[in-house]
């Protein structure tokens, strides 16, 4: 156990050290403050509902029932579809940029890709709503339905609208694509050249070298990139509210509407924040999002650990 004396030995004895310690304490305490506030506000409803908070499907402020199962499913499906679109796209783009594209092309492509990061999410939402929605309704949804519709998850359940989990996931993918691509590319480019040379000198082809040496060696960095993308996908609110339909039900298909946890908070907080229990319930959703992110990050790390080479290091 640490006692006060031990802690005191960690206080730097030079002036710059103390200043940095003080500043670090400010940022650390702000994080602690947010957590305390979040959990504190959420605890009445969490305690009242118990496990029912996760398993319940009813959300009703008047009867005081708070179950997030459908919202949870909405968020999970949305995240899964987003990752299914964004991960392969950004990974392959990153591999192309890092390994095949000539320097000048990578130089031209990179700034616009990076600029996409700075666009506010509401703009993506508007773009999705006014442009992609139509395209999805008339072209994408019918196409998916006619080709893959015999599998229930690809069925176009509401042909009269383009609003769907897939639409939200597509826009979300475009949003996280730049970050994930740029960071993955960086991870690939920082793999020591020595490995590449050694592999090529052994008579491996470029693709074999990428597959067997460079990708595994870059895996920790790529996983970090994916995690950042994942976090943004789970936490994103604005664009999703506009594109996913916000209909509290069990989505049967990726072309169905759904309701994500973040959307629920955004939609309801304005009115219900002045009531104690509803406010607590909405903060409880916040806790759920936080826990979900935590689990996903842990999972991603675990998977990355399996893929990366030389686990013992």
């Amino acid at each position: 156990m640490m006692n006060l004396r031990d802690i005191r030995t960690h206080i730097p004895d030079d002036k710059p050290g103390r200043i940095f310690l003080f500043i670090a304490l400010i940022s650390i305490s702000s994080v602690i403050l947010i957590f305390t506030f979040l959990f504190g506000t959420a605890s009445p409803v969490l305690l009242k509902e118990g496990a029912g908070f996760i398993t319940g499907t009813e959300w009703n402020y008047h009867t005081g029932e708070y179950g997030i199962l459908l919202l949870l499913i909405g968020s999970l499906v949305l995240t899964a579809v987003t990752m299914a679109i964004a991960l392969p796209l950004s990974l392959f783009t990153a591999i192309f940029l890092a390994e095949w594209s000539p320097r000048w092309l990578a130089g031209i492509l990179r700034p616009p890709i990076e600029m996409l990061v700075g666009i506010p999410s509401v703009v993506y939402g508007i773009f999705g709503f006014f442009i992609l929605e139509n395209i999805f309704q008339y072209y994408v949804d019918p196409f998916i339905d006619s080709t893959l519709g015999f599998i229930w998850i690809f069925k176009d359940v509401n042909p009269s609208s383009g609003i769907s989990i897939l639409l939200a996931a597509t826009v979300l993918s475009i949003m996280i694509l730049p970050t994930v691509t740029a960071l993955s590319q960086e991870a690939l480019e920082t793999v020591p050249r020595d490995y590449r040379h050694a592999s090529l000198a052994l008579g491996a082809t470029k693709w074999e070298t990428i597959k067997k040496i460079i990708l595994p060696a870059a895996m920790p960095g790529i996983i970090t990139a994916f995690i950042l993308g994942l976090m943004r996908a789970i936490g994103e609110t604005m664009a999703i509210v506009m594109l996913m339909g916000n209909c509290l039900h069990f989505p049967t298909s990726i072309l169905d509407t759904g309701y994500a946890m973040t959307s629920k908070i955004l939609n309801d907080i304005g009115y219900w924040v002045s009531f104690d229990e509803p406010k607590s319930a909405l903060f409880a959703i916040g806790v759920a999002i936080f826990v979900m992110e935590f689990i996903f990050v842990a999972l991603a790390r675990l998977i990355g650990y399996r893929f990366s080479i030389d686990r013992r290091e």
Partner: protein
Amino acid sequence: MENHETILETKKLNLFYGDKQALIDVDLSVYKNHVTALIGPSGCGKSTLIRCFNRMNDLVSDCRIEGQVIYHDQNLYSPAVDVVHMRKKIGMVFQQPNPFPKSIYDNVAYGPRVHGIKDKKILDGIVEKSLMQAALWDEVHDRLDDPAMGLSGGQQQRLCIARTLAVEPEIILMDEPCSALDPIATAKIESLIDDLKKEYTVIIVTHSMSQASRVSDFTGFMYLGKMIEFGETEKIFTSPDEELTNNYITGRFG
């Protein structure tokens, strides 16, 4: 020299990095089952030349080559050459030990696996044989699954040699393989090179004249991108024809 079989030969080899010429009209014959050393002051083009032999210079974007490198009656730089296949036949050991961040076993098995060998028994055999040849087997046979990065520098370099041997090349190129090693590890690698020439042809770049005289049968002295003198090692180190060579080996410059 007449009764030595030439395995690799350069003819009027010129190499440019952008505008800068790094090799000037280099003519060199490398004899089969012998060790050829390349010496010369820093920046004279030794690494550049040795990298021409397995076309690692292809990775340098603005590198241009004129002239020929003849290997088995074929110009390595002719479009018909399958570079990947050629590199299997002409292996390379780098200056810095560069094992992959994988296990010792996987490092040695990497080449054979890439070339399609999947049978675990065959791979086991190759790994053992290669590590034996590289004089590393005794030190690592009970920890083949340990990470290669955990080996000492000298062991890592011998692992890299084993990894190269595992693909059964004809020629092994070594660019200052001992420069990152201590004298004991260096001695091990030198005696290894001596054993290797029974089965392989070795070309080694070195800064150490004593190393060149110990391990090599033939020596080429390079200066400012030119091959100044080439001949039997003993002759180069005792009675060179060229003034420059003499100055270099007696330590008057470089």
